[in-house]
């Protein structure tokens, strides 16, 4: 995917670019409102990641501008302001997602993947990872063509893993993806452990390779690198 990143904080922008480039996206970063407008007029992007507070303008205006044009890229807002009004306003004018800083890069990546699926397959795609086949819209998962019954959270967990395959995913990143912002982390860590144990158990039972690796003290990794056909 071709992605435009509009974020005035260069350090943060660099991190995002680095993470996304590794995922195989083409990224362009701009740091000002004017530059962003210029880029949007000139080029086509599949997705735009935009910060609301820019030194010379408001990110929301950029979204309005994009929505008025004939182009329809996916839009993700990143903002330090976690106000409900901002969030609602952002989503109202056509943004796909709203992330509050600080956010996990894995989370941003998962949202981009889901936008990618929406644009390219209208959500009706088969996602195939080695022996795992996922029908995203139907929320169905097959291992060696045999269906695995997953709960909603387990499905979300698997999708998050696959979106960020071969990456170390932190426990807090997982927790926020599954449960949202405002939860005591001590709760979520117990919960995540339970979910992962159940998910792994269900996958292994159908003869799936054990892709989920525990990374000591940090989190987990959906590791395809040590298996063939990845």
């Amino acid at each position, binding site marked *: 995917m071709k992605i435009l990143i509009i974020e005035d904080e260069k350090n*943060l922008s660099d991190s995002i670019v680095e993470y996304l480039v590794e995922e195989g996206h083409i990224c362009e970063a701009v740091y000002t409102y004017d530059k962003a407008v210029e880029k949007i007029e000139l080029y086509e992007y599949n997705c735009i990641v935009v910060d609301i507070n820019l030194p010379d303008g408001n990110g929301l205006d950029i979204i309005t501008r994009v929505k008025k044009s004939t182009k329809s890229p996916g839009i993700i807002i990143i903002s330090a302001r976690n106000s409900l009004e901002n969030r609602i306003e952002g989503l109202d004018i056509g943004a796909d997602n709203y992330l509050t800083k*600080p956010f996990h890069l894995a989370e941003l990546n998962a949202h981009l993947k889901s936008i990618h699926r929406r644009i390219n397959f209208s959500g009706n795609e088969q996602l195939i990872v080695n022996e795992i086949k996922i029908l995203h819209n139907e929320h169905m998962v097959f291992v060696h063509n045999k269906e695995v019954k997953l709960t909603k959270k387990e499905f979300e967990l698997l999708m998050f893993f696959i979106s960020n395959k071969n990456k170390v995913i932190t426990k807090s990143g997982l927790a926020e993806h599954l449960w949202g912002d405002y939860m005591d982390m001590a709760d979520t860590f117990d919960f995540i452990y339970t979910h992962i144990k159940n998910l792994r158990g269900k996958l292994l039972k159908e003869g799936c390779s054990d892709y989920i690796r525990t990374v000591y003290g940090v989190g987990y990794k959906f590791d395809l690198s040590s298996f063939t056909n990845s």
Partner: protein
Amino acid sequence: MKLLTKTTLNYLSVTLFVFLFGIIAFYYQLRHQVNQNIKIELEKRKSSIINQLLSAHSSVVTPPNQNEKVIISLLKEVPSPQLSFYDTLFYDYTAKKYVPFRQLGFVASFNHTDYYIQIFKSLEETDNLIVRIFLIMAVLVILIIITLLITVRQTSLRAWKVFYDTIKKINSYDINSHHDFSLSPSDVKEFDDLNRVLIAMTDRIKKDYSNMKEYTENASHEIQTPLAIINSKMELLLQSQNLDEKQFKAVADAYEASNRLSKLNKTLLLLAKIENRQFPESKSISPQTLINAQLETLEDLIVSKKIKVVRKYEEGVVLYMNPYLAEILFSNLVKNAIRHNLTEGELSIQISSGLIRISNSGTELKIDQKSLFERFNKQSSSPESVGLGLAIVQKICDVYDFNVSYLYEHNMHKFSIDYRNSR
């Protein structure tokens, strides 16, 4: 005792005392004066009668009027003549009643014979006069006391009203309140001064407070961006293949710590926003739907902990609050009840009009129950827990005047939300 009651009572007792003694003294003084007058009059008549006796040979003269009655008798015929003044009663045939008289008995010699002479003066009129004067005086005094009392009370009441109003307003003063703090004007200078000083004081406090709050909020917001940078750099670093185990561990620890900081910061911002009432729009919320949704999301955990869920729902219970806050409120309580539950424990949810209770099995807490809802109070020393979950619950309940309470009973932790007094 209220100042007004005190002054009124003092005033009343003093005036009553003074007037009571005044009236008694007045009565005796009046009585004395009248007696004196009668005495003088009788003396006058005595000398005139003696003169008449000396000049005329009259015997007993009995005019119809008792006042002018003179009884003259021979001294030796009177067994014990009463000389000088004394009081007596005569039957008045016209008025058909006994009437008090003052009588003067004296002895006068005429032609070498001693006569005992009695003359009389009716006391009835003077008595009546005294009683009437006394009554009028008494009524007047009582009237004066009552009118004074009423006037003083009314004036004071009106004057003090402002003061009581001020006290009431200060008592319910909430620095977090978003209403303007104003005090009623008074025509009493002291109270006006007091109000002015109080308003100046609260304004100053409020300004300082909001400055400080603004500062912390701004700081929290400004911290978000650097934190975002730190976190993203760490996340990238964690993906690096070139780290040895020790370095990886160090990065991982630092990453977790900065994550905790972000979480803490986000939660504190949320708390500040709840305190600032930045979630104004309210809707009718069904607690059943919200709690059921929470239970559904957490179903995997309930199953894995083998928790028995007991639902006692009353039909048609509706809360009026912000949907987002309602979700946070119930999700915090339900998650809390699952996390602190025992394996094969019970999770009981009771929803009735006026009360929502979420209970879970568990062992007794070691910390003080009262401090349970305070910030950063946690029982476990678990480093991941920020100890703000219940503080958020408390804050949300404060916004809507819900009364949230904790009780440990029959091996169950019970969190109750009483919303009967809610707005």
